[in-house]
C-alpha cells in the first residue's frame, strides 16, 4: 500500500492547500505586520477620485492605514452589499442612503457610533438635523452625513429662448410649470417640456406628493399615504404630462433615460438633484445651456432632502480605524474637498466651496430650498414597498389603469408590507 498511501497523502495535501488559499482570499482587510487596509465601498464613479484622494489624506495622518475605494455602480450596489454582508464580509466603511438605512441598522449590520461620537466630542449640529435624524435608529446614531441634496428644476435656457418662454420665476406655481411645458413641447422636433420619470421618486413623485399636501408614509411609519386624495394629485401631476404628450411616454423613457434625453436637448425641464451639478458641468451639451430653478409651488412649497452617510460595518476587523476614517470624512476639511469636485457637502459652512465650483448654474437655489425641505420617506424595510411603488404605478404611467386606482392598490400592498415590518 506504500504507493497509494503516498498518493493519498499528496491528494489530501492538494485539497488542503486549495481550501486554505480559499479561506485566505476572503475579508480583504489587514494582516499581522501592522499594516491595515480599510475597504470603502462607494457607488458614484464621479466621486471615486475625490474619495481616493481623501483616503490618501487619511493615510498621511494615520500611518499604516491605507484605504481601498471599491466602486460598484448604483444599479448593483445594494444587491452586492447585501450579499457580502450576508456572507459576513461587508466593506469596513461604506456609503449608506435613507431607504436602506433602517434595514441595515435594525439587523445589526452596521455599528452604532454614539460612544465614539461622545468620546471624540463630534459636534452633530454641523449637519442638517433632517439628515442626522435620517441616520438615527432607536436613538442611536449610525452614520455621519457626507453630502446632502435637494431637488430643483434644471432647465435648458436654449430651448426656453427658442420657444419664447421666460425663465421660471423663483415663486412659480404648478400652473406656470404646466403652461411652460405646453409651450416648450414641440413634437415636430421631438422636444418635450418635461419628463415624467417613473424610477426616481426622490426627484419626481415624492416632491409633487408633498407639494399637493399628501404624504407617502405616516409619521409613525405604520400607514401608507397612497390612498390619500392629495397624494393622488401629486401623482396625477406626472401622468397628466404624459397624457398631454408634454412628456415622453414610458416606453421611450425605458429605451432612453430622461437624463440622456435632457443632455441631448430633447427635454426642456428636468427635475433633478443638486448632485447633477458635476454631471452637467462635465457634459459638452449641458455645461453652458442649463440653469436651476426652484421646484414650482403646488398647495405648498416642498423639496425632498436626502443625503448620503458613511457607516461602519458591524463586523469590521478594525472598528477603531474605521471610525477614525468616518470621522475624517465627516470633517470640515473633507467636506471642503468634496464640495470642490462633486456633491453638496453636508457639513455646515462648507457649501460655499461647492457654489464656487459651478458658478454658472445658480446653485444657490438648492440651498435656499432647504427652508421648506421635506425628509425622505422611509421605514424599516423601505426597499420592499419601493418595489411595490414601481409595480403598481407602472400601470398608471402607461395609462393601463387610472392613477387613482393604481394608487389605491399600491396603498393596500404597502400597508400589508408595513404590517410585516
Amino acid at each position, binding site marked *: 500500500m506504500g504507493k497509494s498511501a503516498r498518493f493519498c497523502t499528496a491528494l489530501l495535501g492538494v485539497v488542503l492547500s486549495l481550501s486554505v488559499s480559499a479561506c485566505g482570499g476572503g475579508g480583504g482587510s489587514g494582516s499581522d505586520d501592522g499594516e491595515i487596509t480599510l475597504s470603502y465601498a462607494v457607488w458614484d464613479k464621479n466621486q471615486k477620485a475625490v474619495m481616493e484622494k481623501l483616503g490618501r489624506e487619511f493615510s498621511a495622518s494615520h500611518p499604516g492605514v491605507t484605504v481601498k475605494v471599491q466602486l460598484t455602480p448604483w*444599479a448593483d450596489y445594494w444587491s452586492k452589499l447585501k450579499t457580502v454582508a450576508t456572507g459576513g464580509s461587508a466593506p469596513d466603511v461604506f456609503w449608506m442612503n435613507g431607504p436602506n438605512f433602517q434595514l441595515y441598522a435594525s439587523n445589526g449590520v452596521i455599528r452604532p457610533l454614539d460612544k465614539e461620537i461622545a468620546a471624540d466630542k463630534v459636534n452633530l449640529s454641523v449637519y442638517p438635523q433632517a439628515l442626522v435624524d435620517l441616520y438615527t435608529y432607536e436613538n442611536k446614531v449610525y452614520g455621519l452625513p457626507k453630502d446632502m441634496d435637494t431637488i430643483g428644476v434644471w432647465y435648458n435656457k436654449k430651448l426656453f429662448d427658442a420657444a419664447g418662454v421666460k425663465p421660471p420665476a423663483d415663486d412659480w406655481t404648478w400652473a406656470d410649470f404646466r403652461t411652460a411645458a405646453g409651450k416648450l413641447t414641440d413634437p415636430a422636433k421631438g422636444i418635450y417640456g418635461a419628463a415624467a420619470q*417613473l424610477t426616481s421618486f426622490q426627484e419626481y413623485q415624492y416632491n409633487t406628493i408633498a407639494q399637493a399636501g399628501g404624504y407617502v408614509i405616516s409619521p409613525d411609519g405604520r400607514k401608507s399615504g397612497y390612498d390619500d386624495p392629495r397624494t393622488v394629485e401629486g401623482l396625477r401631476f406626472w401622468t397628466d404630462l404624459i397624457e398631454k404628450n408634454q412628456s415622453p411616454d414610458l416606453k421611450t423613457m425605458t429605451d432612453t433615460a430622461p437624463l440622456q434625453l435632457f443632455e441631448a436637448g430633447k427635454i426642456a425641464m428636468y427635475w433633478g438633484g443638486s448632485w447633477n451639478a458635476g454631471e452637467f458641468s462635465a457634459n459638452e451639451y449641458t455645461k453652458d445651456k442649463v440653469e436651476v430653478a426652484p421646484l414650482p409651488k403646488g398647495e405648498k412649497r416642498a423639496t425632498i432632502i436626502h443625503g448620503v452617510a458613511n457607516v461602519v460595518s458591524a463586523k469590521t476587523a478594525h472598528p477603531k480605524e474605521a471610525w477614525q476614517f468616518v470621522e475624517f470624512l465627516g470633517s470640515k476639511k473633507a467636506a471642503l474637498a468634496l464640495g470642490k469636485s462633486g456633491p453638496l457637502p453636508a457639513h455646515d459652512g462648507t457649501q460655499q466651496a461647492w457654489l464656487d465650483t459651478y458658478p454658472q448654474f445658480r446653485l444657490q437655489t438648492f440651498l435656499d430650498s432647504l427652508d421648506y425641505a421635506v425628509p425622505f420617506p422611509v421605514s424599516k424595510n423601505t426597499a420592499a414597498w419601493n418595489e411595490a411603488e414601481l409595480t403598481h404605478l407602472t400601470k398608471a404611467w402607461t395609462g393601463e389603469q387610472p392613477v387613482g386606482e393604481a394608487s389605491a392598490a399600491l396603498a393596500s400592498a404597502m400597508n400589508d408590507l408595513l404590517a410585516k415590518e
Partner: protein
Amino acid sequence: MTLTSRPGGRPRRRPRRDRVTEALWGYAFIAPAGLGLAVFYLWPVVRTGYFSFTEWGAFGGHTWSGLDNYHRLLSDPEVGRSLVNTLAYTALGLIAIPLAVVFAALLNRDGLRGAGIYRTLFFLPVVTMPVAVAMIWRWLYNGDYGLINHVLAQVGIDGPNWIADPDTALFALVVVGIWSSLGYNLVIFLAGMQAIPKEYYDAAAIDGAGPVRQFFRITLPLLSPTAFFVSIISVIGSLQLFDLVYVLAGSGQTARANPAFPRMETVVQLFHDRAFATNDRGYGAAIVMMLLVLIIALTALQFRLQKRWVHYG
C-alpha cells in the same frame, strides 16, 4: 481488456494488488473533475434543496419553514408569468435548430468560396460575451435612436420601442437569442454533416436523386442524432435564460418600470431578484428547485420522444 487477454490462451488473471493500484490511479485521474463536480455542482444542489425549505432574514440566518416557500410559489402570479415567458422563449428558440441546419447545409457545399469567413462570421456572436451582445442590441432596438427603426423609417415604417413594448419584447428577445446561438449550433451540425460518408451521396446521385432529395433522405435522417443533442442543449440553455434579459430589459428598478418587463421576466431572473436583490433566499431556492424539476422533466421527455425521430446511422 486487450492487455489482460492473450491470443490463444486463457486470459491470465493479474494479481489483485495490481488491479487495486490500477483502480486507484483511475480514480486519481478523475478526482480533480469529480472534486470540482462535487464542490461546485452537487453540494450546491443539495444546499439549495435544503434552503428551499427555509425562511431567511434580510442578512442571513435561516429558520426551517417547511413547505411555505412552495405554497407561496403556487400562488405567486410572478412565478406563473415568468414560467410562461420562459417556456414561450424556449419554444420559439427551437426555430434556431432548422435555421442552423439550413445554414450548415449551405456552408457545407463543395467548393464554396470563403467558407472559412462565413463560418467565422456565424461563430463570432458565440465567442462574444452575452452582456456585450445584449448591450449592442439594446442600442439597435432603441425606439427613437436605434438602427433598426432608422432603417424601417427609410421605407416609411414607424417602428416600435422593441424592448419596451409588451407586444414586441419577447420576439425581440428571441431574435437576439437565436442570433447569438446560431454559430454554436451551426458548428455542431457541420461536424455532423461531415461525418456522413460521401459514398451515400454518390450512390444516391447514381440512382438519380437531386440535391434536395439527398438532403431530405440522407442528410436529415443521419443528422437526427446531432439535432437531438442540439435540441437538448438549446432547451436547457433557453430555460436558464438570464443575461440577455438582465441587460435588455434592465435590472432592479429599471426593469420594474419597463412596461414590457412582465413579458420578458424569466424564471432565472425572478430567482436572481428574490435571492440577491430582496435577499429572500429561501424563496429563491424554491424557484430554482422548480426550474431544476422542469429541466429534468423536459429533458426526460425529449429522451422518450427521440425514439420516434432519431436514427442512428
